[in-house]
């Protein structure tokens, strides 16, 4: 019993560690820096993509979108003679409803996990997306068909099946914290922490691993491959940060999370933006957000351009 009580921190200890809690995040940060009217820009992936293209952020190319049930049968026309693509809901979250087709030949679709499905199931999936199964509150949704990202091999040893991504928290346009999310067997190949993926905090100046967590517990090795997580160093780090910094320009959201994947040919690409990024990134970094945000509030200059801000962060001396 006593042990169990000891597994709780006191509120005081947490605030000394600068931990940002959910209530405080919602009240002090999000409601202040993220006006509601900006949400549609990030909640709808089609809009995000259009904006990103305009401002010069790399995203997977949009092959097409399906808005109405009767268009669903046009899926084969849209695909044309492509062999790989991704179908996902425009307003989905948490990886729900993402169908990755890595091979399409002779009417047979092979998914990322190697399962083969037919036209009928694909049609079904689109139909589910449109009827709002994966969107918040069951609203009618749009299905996006976009190019498959060819993930760089860099993370190969660190993840089981799925695709790792990098999440950068951007505050007032300055990259504040970053982590990479590595799918595990337990997470079913998904890069979502609450499903059991590993989160590895990355040094915001270098992109090097700081420490790892899995289900809120510290880890140093990938449980499935045994790879040493502490060896991770994300390449094209500046480009990663640039995506985050530009996302601020693009949306106006003072506090956002950018999900970035590394394509083997095209480099870092933005998959989606989040106006209410989770707080687990603090555990992955071993750093409280309150501290970071306060420092940016007090010591970082205002009115810089995106590249200037990124350079400011990169050139900051290590503590």
């Amino acid at each position: 019993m006593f042990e169990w009580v000891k597994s709780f921190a006191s509120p005081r200890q947490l605030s000394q560690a600068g931990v940002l809690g959910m209530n405080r995040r919602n009240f002090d940060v999000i409601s202040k820096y993220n006006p509601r009217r900006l949400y549609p820009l990030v909640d709808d992936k089609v809009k995000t993509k259009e904006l990103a293209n305009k401002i010069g952020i790399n995203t997977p190319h949009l092959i097409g979108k399906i808005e109405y049930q009767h268009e669903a049968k046009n899926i084969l026309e849209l695909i044309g003679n492509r062999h790989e693509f991704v179908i996902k809901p425009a307003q989905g979250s948490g990886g729900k409803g993402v169908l990755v087709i890595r091979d399409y030949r002779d009417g047979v679709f092979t998914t990322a996990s190697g399962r083969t499905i037919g036209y009928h199931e694909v049609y079904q999936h689109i139909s589910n997306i449109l009827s709002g199964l994966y969107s918040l509150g069951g609203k009618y949704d749009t299905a996006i068909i976009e190019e498959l990202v060819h993930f760089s091999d860099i993370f190969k040893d660190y993840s089981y099946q799925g695709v790792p991504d990098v999440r950068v928290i951007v505050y007032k346009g300055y990259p504040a914290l970053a982590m990479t999310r590595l799918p595990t067997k337990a997470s079913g190949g998904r890069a979502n922490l609450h499903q059991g993926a590993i989160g590895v905090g990355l040094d915001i100046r270098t992109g090097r691993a700081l420490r790892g967590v899995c289900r809120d517990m510290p880890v140093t090795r990938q449980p499935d491959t045994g790879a040493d997580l502490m060896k991770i160093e994300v390449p094209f780090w500046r480009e990663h940060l640039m995506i985050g910094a530009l996302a601020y320009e693009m949306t106006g959201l003072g506090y956002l999370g950018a999900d970035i994947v590394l394509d083997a040919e095209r480099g870092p690409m933005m998959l989606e933006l989040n106006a209410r990024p989770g707080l687990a990134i603090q555990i992955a970094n071993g750093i409280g957000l309150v501290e970071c945000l306060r420092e940016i509030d007090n010591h970082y200059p205002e009115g810089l351009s995106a590249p200037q801000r990124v350079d400011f962060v990169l050139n900051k001396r290590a503590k």
Partner: protein
Amino acid sequence: MLKKLASVRGILSILLLLSIVYAAYGIYYKVSYWGFHFTPRQSANIWTIEAHISFEPTGEPIKVALTTPRSSDAFKILEENVVAEGYKTSKNKEESRLVLTSAPKVDKQDIYYKIMLFDNIDTRGKIKADAPKAPKQPIFDEQRLAAAKQLLQLAQKQDGDAVSQIIRLLNEEPLQPAVQAYLPVKSTQQIMVEIITDLLSLKGIPSRTARGFRLEESKKALSPDLMIEAYIDGLWKIYDIKTGKKGLPDNFVLFQRGGQSLIDVEGGENSVIKFSVLKSITSSMKLAGRRAELFDQQRNFQYSIYNLPLAQQNTLKWLSIFPLAILVIVLMRNVIGLQTMGTFTPMLLAMSLVKTGFWPGLLCFAIIMVLGLSIRFLMSKFNLLLVPRISAVVIFVILIMQFLTVIGYQLEFNIAQSAVFFPIIIMSWIIERASITWEEDGALNACREIVFSLIVAIATYFVISSEYIRHIMFAFNELNLVILFIVMLLGTYTGYRLMELKRFRPLVKS
């Protein structure tokens, strides 16, 4: 930001404070003027005392005067009426006497006086009053005077104060020879009272007779009980003439006290007055209006929810528990940090549990969930579209409920009524959500969500199923305003949630 937060909090705190003051006043008002209780006392006793007066007219104009009780701290009068054909009635407020007059009559006369009392409380009546004149000394011959003085001597060995001592002496079992000799062979209450009065006068203590009723149901005709009041230390204190016990007995209604006679009949003879006492029960709330009237507060009452038809009141009673349930949910989510399926799903579950009873409800919920989820998993193989799929789940849930009801009936196991109280659509959505979470996020997350939802539902259940809390929230509905501001204040709570204390524990620097 901090400044703004402080001011929002400040305003809300002030509003909360005001609402507390308002609620406190409201509670005080309702308790003192409408007689509301803190406990859900559902019924109140109403006592009906009927006096039947009969006499034979002598052929002269008739005037009947009856002493009647007046509303006091001890009880309130709900209704008072007289059935006396051909009589003019008037009331002498000063002396609390009912006066009936009529022209001469021939036949035997019957007059009925009925009074309904409620809220009887034991006042252990001690009445402040100016000192009366020194008592008239009884007219005794020498022998009797000596005997009386001897009794007063003997009395001093009894317990209690002077009055109690005398009464106890006279009622001792067995009687002492001196007492036996003093008392008449056959004594009545009336005679006893006279004897006591005489002895008290001899001692210089003023006293008077009081008549009333112990409120015990008896449909028989009965005559009033006599008690004696003695003036001691500036107060009229009342004594039981059998036991010598001081104070009004429980549920005793005084009809008349002091010099006046209970009834005076002019123009009639052989007058007889018989009483009957009847108890009836009514809802305590029903009397509130009458209480309000007695305090001249009927307008406030008229525009309160307690003056609505009962059906509406019941609905409102059910509704007025919700703010508290909502408060529980807000606490669970924003202070404890339990993530549930849908914000108000647990509340709806809790409501069903109230209707079904706790254990049968939980059992039913478990069965519906297990069967529903299994069927839903089987169904996921068919790849149905969303709306038809949920509709199918709804139909399955209905079938499960039918099945449970039939089984419950056959096994004489009382979940029969339970199953049907679960909101079908809600159950179907829970099943659908759970199965999607199960597929997408794994069994662990799905089970956790269900368990957390259940925990919150159970906590809510215990709040809203308590008869006591329900009563308080309805009877003192201004508390809902307090809850409103508490909930709004919680909306500015930026501290850590309980679950976060555990979750972020690894961040604590050692």
